[in-house]
């Protein structure tokens, strides 16, 4: 035992007051465990809902927004006449001009990891007299799958089979069920431009999202162009993935310098989901922090009563030459030892909770319970746990430092 004397005294207090140490450590452990658990839940949920968004949303999309007609003559003053009084949408075509060039420029940006062209169009799926309305997507299927991981959701057929197959289509499972179709069957599809085609189903996907499964279908770019009676350069949207989806605002500004078309990130497109996420994580944060504060109060309380009990000892220490600072060090060391033990137990307890919940099968597209196992959360919980015990230890130890030994000895 070659510890510094202040620490030595703290360790003796802790080992001799085992019951109090246990209660205090357990309090911290509970606080830390719940904090870690709830934050992992929150992070898991956010991750899950973000994954959901990125199932069919890229980080950034570039498209042509509708243009509103402007007055031919600018309004000079209130007396002048406007030539066009009734602003209207003047977009003739949704196409991006020279998309290959834009795509190439976008891909050259250092923060862009992937970019693809896409055509969105309205389509009807027909069988006999049955007609389903839906939305078609014209893409290079392999590039698309790379970006959105469509491969993962295929329940029949293969993505590869659509590549270069202008008569092939991949449809959602909802469409397949309703029209009683399977891989290898033909499906009749018609566009709002009156073009009708019979395509062969090469694959069926199921994303667990009825909006997707009941309406979406994938065809090659050229097939989509034919549906729309457009030429080979027709593309409506460029989707871009970046290295950091949290930082898209900056990338949007940079991409906007390349092109005049509307550049929009996923946060803008999914503002409702994001604000829902924020609300939930704020709620989780406040609940877990309250529990944390409660654990801090337990430590504070226990140290306060320890100090009241040991007021004679403190007076002796001060009489024999310990300064107020030494006394503070002794009690902070006690708080820290209890805090670190409690925090470590709390992290283990939290891990057990996280592990147990991650093994709960929720079914459907969710699968196993989405709970995050993040190192950064462990570090944050540890730092917060130790900080809390430091504060909870410092406050009562200041009182101990101010003990007047004369007052104690005179009693």
């Amino acid at each position, binding site marked *: 035992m*070659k510890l510094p004397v202040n620490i030595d005294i703290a360790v003796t207090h802790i080992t001799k007051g085992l019951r109090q140490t246990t209660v205090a450590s357990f309090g911290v452990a509970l606080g830390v465990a719940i904090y870690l658990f709830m934050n992992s839940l929150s992070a898991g949920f956010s991750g899950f809902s973000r994954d959901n968004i990125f199932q069919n949303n890229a980080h950034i999309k570039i498209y042509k927004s509708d243009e509103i007609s402007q007055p031919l003559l600018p309004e000079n003053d209130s007396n002048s006449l406007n030539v066009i009084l009734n602003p209207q949408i003047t977009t003739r075509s949704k196409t991006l001009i020279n998309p290959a060039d834009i795509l190439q420029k976008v891909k050259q940006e250092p923060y862009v990891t992937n970019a693809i062209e896409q055509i969105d169009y309205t389509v009807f799926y027909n069988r006999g007299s049955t007609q389903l309305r839906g939305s078609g997507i014209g893409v290079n299927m392999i590039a698309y799958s790379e970006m959105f991981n469509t491969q993962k959701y295929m329940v029949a057929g293969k993505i590869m089979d659509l590549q270069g197959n202008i008569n092939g289509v991949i449809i959602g499972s909802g469409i397949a069920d309703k029209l009683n179709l399977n891989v290898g069957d033909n499906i009749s599809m018609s566009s709002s431009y009156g073009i009708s085609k019979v395509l062969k189903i090469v694959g069926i996907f199921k994303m667990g999202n009825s909006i997707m499964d009941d309406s979406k279908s994938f065809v090659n770019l050229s097939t989509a162009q034919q549906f729309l009676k457009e030429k080979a350069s027709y593309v409506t949207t460029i989707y871009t993935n970046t290295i950091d989806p949290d930082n898209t605002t900056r990338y949007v500004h940079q991409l906007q310098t390349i092109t005049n078309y509307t550049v929009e990130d996923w946060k803008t497109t999914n503002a409702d989901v994001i604000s829902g996420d924020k609300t939930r994580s704020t709620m989780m944060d406040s609940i877990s922090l309250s529990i944390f504060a409660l654990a801090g109060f337990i430590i504070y309380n226990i140290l306060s009563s320890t100090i009241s009990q040991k007021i*004679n000892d403190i007076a002796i*220490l*001060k009489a024999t*030459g310990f*300064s107020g600072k030494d006394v503070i060090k002794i009690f902070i060391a006690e708080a820290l030892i209890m805090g670190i033990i409690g925090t470590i137990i709390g992290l283990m307890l939290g891990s057990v909770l996280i592990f147990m919940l991650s093994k709960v099968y929720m079914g459907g597209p969710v699968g196993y319970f989405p709970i995050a196992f993040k190192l950064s959360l462990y570090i944050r919980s540890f730092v917060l746990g130790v900080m809390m015990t430091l504060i909870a230890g410092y406050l009562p130890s200041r009182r101990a430092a101010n003990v007047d030994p004369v007052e104690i000895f005179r009693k």
Partner: protein
Amino acid sequence: MSNKEIIISTKGLGKYFYDPIKFKVLDNVSFDAYKGEFLTLVGKSGSGKSTLLYCLSTMDTDYEGELTINGKLITGKKTNELAAIRNESIGFVFQFHYLLPEFSCLKNVMIPALRLGKYSHAEVEERAYQKLSMLGLQDQALKPASKLSGGQQQRVSIARALINDPAIIMGDEPTGNLDSKNTEIVFDIFKQLSQEFGQSIIAVTHDNDFAKASDRTIEMADGKIISHKKMF
């Protein structure tokens, strides 16, 4: 006696108590104590002798006048400096032995020396054993302090007061709680310390025999020194 080295000196020491009413508990107390002197403070209850001792001890800083220890002015120093001075040059023995109950006797003796940090841990332990055996307690060293008898505890607290070889040892009724046999032991130790080691002893006592046997007795009444001599 004036040719002796002055170890502690007060000039016009005054102190008030404010609760329940303003009351002058020390009134213009001036005296010197010398190196190697065994000094006792006597007086009726409420005469201010304990209060004087606590002012001398540097623990009580709320007084008027000047206090000098070892030629250095103590009055006005910060509490941390005072703690360091106490640690190094003053040893205390209290009426109610006041040991730390969670520590062994040995550890109780060692703690002030570990705080001082002048010697290594092993040396401090060696010195603590030495002090305990001087007081006949070597066999009790590793027992928890709370397991000892009152007399033994008082001797442990004397060992603790001696561990840093302080210039001054102060006692607040050091024998007040002891039977005559233990009182005699404590007295002999004090006598030995002052004579053989040149340490000054200042002890508040009610015990006339104890006071009688000391080198000098200061008698106090109503916050004033009324006599510097032996009155017995």
